[in-house]
């Protein structure tokens, strides 16, 4: 009789990783000051945390959490539906709804659960959900939990999304689900394109802005604010473990939708609510986000420094324009070695291997905080340079030229996911955007180009001997004219 635990003993990866001494996971932090942590008794720069604004160690946030714990206790001991709602929860929901410019919001115990809650409640058997292939695991699982039909579109590929929208059943309700900022590679979703497709095909949009809220937009309201499309995004989802220095998630949208989700979704009904400390921390962070835009500016400066600093050394930081800075290593084993070497050099990062990324594209994911000092950033760059050279990820000499990254500051037009060529590495060329009108010469050039192309393709058709082409052009043309319908077949 098969044993349900057999797969656990058969799983070798863990033992292999431990045996090679390259096991990077579940490292226990003994002490933390936000930008520096102590692991295994040694101080290391934390370059792998999503504590973007550095508020997790802010005394005001800590004080708010402690005060709430003193007032309400350590936990609510129940779900929101029954005994687990505090006035603090409602205050946070009102403040967030106002911040995210939506009618209502509901806070959930974790961000992961917020996605499970929204998707499982909203998608029925007669709904189709269109999901970016690069979406976070919580969205994938939320869709699995629901009864909706799923259609995955290639990462950032609007034409594929359009194709899927056109082919989907017209009787189904439609929901497009995408990360705002993709968590692994830090690229931004093509929101303007998604919005126009949603309008055209009558679809709703759920935007998971976990890595965008508090980071992007003039007021820190996230990806939708950055693109000026807040009103066009129907549901926004956010998390508190990143810029909000807490633990939890929020779904914000129209009152009726949020109300429905609150009452119908099992991950809210059957799970204990956010602890008082967590709610208070989120509230305090929200206030700081609203009152301290410099913090955000500093975060984006840090991000730009690190992107360009790493590229100047010869690293490939992919398509990110956010404080998520992935460094492409390629081979999985080398990635682990890289992680270990950085760790030993005093820098804590996150190794990312397949299946979270495509095979052959293992990367070291770093993320930076507004509170990182310049000295800490220099240490990180030094460590990367040393390790990168030693493991041959970068050449001995710095490149003469590298592409500068401009991070997503408010008002900066972005290269969006899926269109950036190095991401879709198969594309050899990408038509550049034009900012000047076509000149007559260019138009003529295009026309002649088209004629050349057609002529060349015509010669590719099955033709008699080249010699005959010249000696009997008319008969050839006559023959081809007769068989016009066969043109195009080999």
């Amino acid at each position, binding site marked *: 009789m098969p044993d349900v635990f057999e797969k656990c003993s058969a799983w070798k990866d863990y033992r292999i990783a431990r045996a090679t001494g390259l096991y990077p996971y579940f490292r226990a932090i003994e002490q933390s000051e936000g930008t520096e942590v102590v692991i295994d008794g040694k101080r290391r720069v934390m370059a792998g945390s999503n504590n973007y604004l550095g508020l997790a160690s802010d005394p005001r946030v800590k004080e708010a959490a402690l005060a709430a714990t003193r007032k309400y206790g350590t936990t609510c001991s129940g779900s929101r539906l029954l005994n687990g709602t505090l006035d603090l929860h409602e205050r946070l929901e009102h403040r967030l709804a106002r911040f995210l410019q939506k009618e209502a919001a509901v806070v959930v115990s974790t961000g992961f659960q917020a996605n499970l809650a929204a998707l499982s409640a909203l998608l029925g058997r007669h709904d189709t959900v269109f999901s970016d292939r690069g979406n976070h695991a919580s969205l994938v699982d939320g869709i699995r939990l629901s009864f909706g039909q799923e259609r995955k579109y290639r990462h950032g590929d609007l034409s594929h999304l359009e194709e899927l929208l056109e082919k989907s059943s017209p009787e189904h309700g439609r929901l497009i689900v995408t990360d705002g900022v993709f968590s692994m590679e830090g690229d931004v979703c093509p929101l303007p394109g998604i919005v126009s497709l949603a309008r055209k095909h009558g679809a709703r949009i759920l935007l998971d802005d976990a890595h965008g809220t508090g980071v992007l937009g003039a007021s820190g309201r996230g990806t939708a604010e950055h693109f000026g499309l807040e009103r066009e995004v129907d549901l926004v989802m956010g998390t508190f473990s990143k810029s909000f220095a807490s633990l939890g998630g929020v779904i914000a949208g129209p009152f009726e939708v949020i109300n429905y989700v609150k009452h119908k979704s099992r991950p809210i009904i059957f799970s204990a609510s956010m602890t008082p400390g967590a709610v208070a921390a989120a509230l305090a962070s929200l206030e700081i986000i609203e009152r301290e835009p410099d913090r955000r500016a500093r975060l984006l400066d840090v991000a730009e420094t690190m992107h360009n600093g790493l590229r100047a050394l*010869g690293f*490939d930081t992919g398509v990110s324009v956010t404080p998520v800075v992935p460094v*492409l*290593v*390629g*081979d999985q084993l*080398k990635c682990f070695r890289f992680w270990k070497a950085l760790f030993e050099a005093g820098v804590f990062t996150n190794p990312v291997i397949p299946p979270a990324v495509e095979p*052959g*594209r*293992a990367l070291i994911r770093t993320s930076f905080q507004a509170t990182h000092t310049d000295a800490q950033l220099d240490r990180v760059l030094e460590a990367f340079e040393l390790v990168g050279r030693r493991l*041959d*990820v*970068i*050449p001995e000499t710095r*490149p*003469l*030229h590298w*592409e500068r990254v401009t991070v997503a500051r408010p008002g900066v037009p972005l290269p969006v996911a899926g269109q950036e*060529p*190095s991401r879709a*590495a*198969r*594309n*050899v*060329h*990408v*038509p*550049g955007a034009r900012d000047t009108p076509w000149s007559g010469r260019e138009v003529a050039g295009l*026309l*002649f180009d088209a*004629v*050349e*192309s057609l*002529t*060349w*393709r015509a*010669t*590719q058709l*099955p*033709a008699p*001997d*080249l*010699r005959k*082409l*010249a*000696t009997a*052009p008319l008969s050839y043309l006559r023959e081809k004219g007769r068989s016009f319908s066969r043109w195009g077949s*080999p």
Partner: protein
Amino acid sequence: MSGLRVLPVRTAAARNRFIDLPYALYRDEAGFVPPLKMERRAALDPSRHPWFEFGTAELFLAEQDGRVVGRIAAFHDQNHNRFHGDSTGHFGMFEVDLDAPAEVSRELVTAAATWLRGRGLDRLEGPVSPSTNYECGLLVKGQDAPPSLRTPWNPPGYAERLERAGLRKTRDLLGWELRTDVPEPPRFLRVEAALQESAGVQVRSFDPGHFDREVEILRGLYNAAWERNWGFVPMTDREFQHMASELRPLLEPRMVRIAEVAGEPVAFSLALPDASPALKAAGGTLTTFGLPIGLLRMAWAARTLKRLRLITLGVKERFRRRGLDALLCLDALRGARALGYEAAELSWTLEDNLPINRAISSLGARHTKTWRLYEKELA
């Protein structure tokens, strides 16, 4: 190095500059045969060329003070690595303005190497474009010999530039010149007689009426015959079909021969008219300002093609050492003479393939060209 930038190709305009570089550099060189620009575009278009189903490429341009002074392409061929069980990256399409400093070639090779290393590859090989099934090798001898169809031409300085960039020779490929008026060597005639008596070998021409079926037979023979050869990668169906349809306009059925034993195809030879003079006449474009000037020039020059290129010849493993390759060579020679061709270039053979090289020289061919393949460790 002031003003030198090596950048990956990202726009259509940059891609056109990439393709145009050799025309600008070698317009006046006798040995350079300008490929049709549209054909080059299609060859680099992932949506049109079947190599990109399993391969990825990155093109790099070196620009100095706004002028293009060099180019290189880096290829990541998954099929090659799967077949050989290694992690090799390839480079190709290497062209550099020899008047520009040596720095340029070094930077180009570094750019390609870095890109490949970033994809987890640890060895660099080339030049190929995009694999050994297409154009490959750097011409190191024979710059003044008559050019031939689909073989690379480079000026003499490239070899030194690549060597200075850290590349080392790995293998040479030889090109041979055979005049069709050579006497048929007695040894070959003896082999022919023996084969016809004993093994019941029949040699037939390609049947253009059943193009697809014949192409499929050739593909099977090509992959089976070449499997163990150094540097070989099997072509996928679509690669082979694509190449067949590209070469179809040049097809001379009598010059594509299949040897059969008891009805089973066991060997083949493929020779095509060398359309280099026609391509040279066209100069890279079939039309000028919309008028088919290049096309007409090409067609005119195509009337009097005097040379052939014997591209490939293969015998299935079980049927080797019976003289089938000698038979096919002799047969190709006869066919060429009958059709009025004056000379053929046999290219390419591996320098260490002694049996075939010996056979070709005893047929009367002279070694006139050498292409070199290079390699370099990346990690």
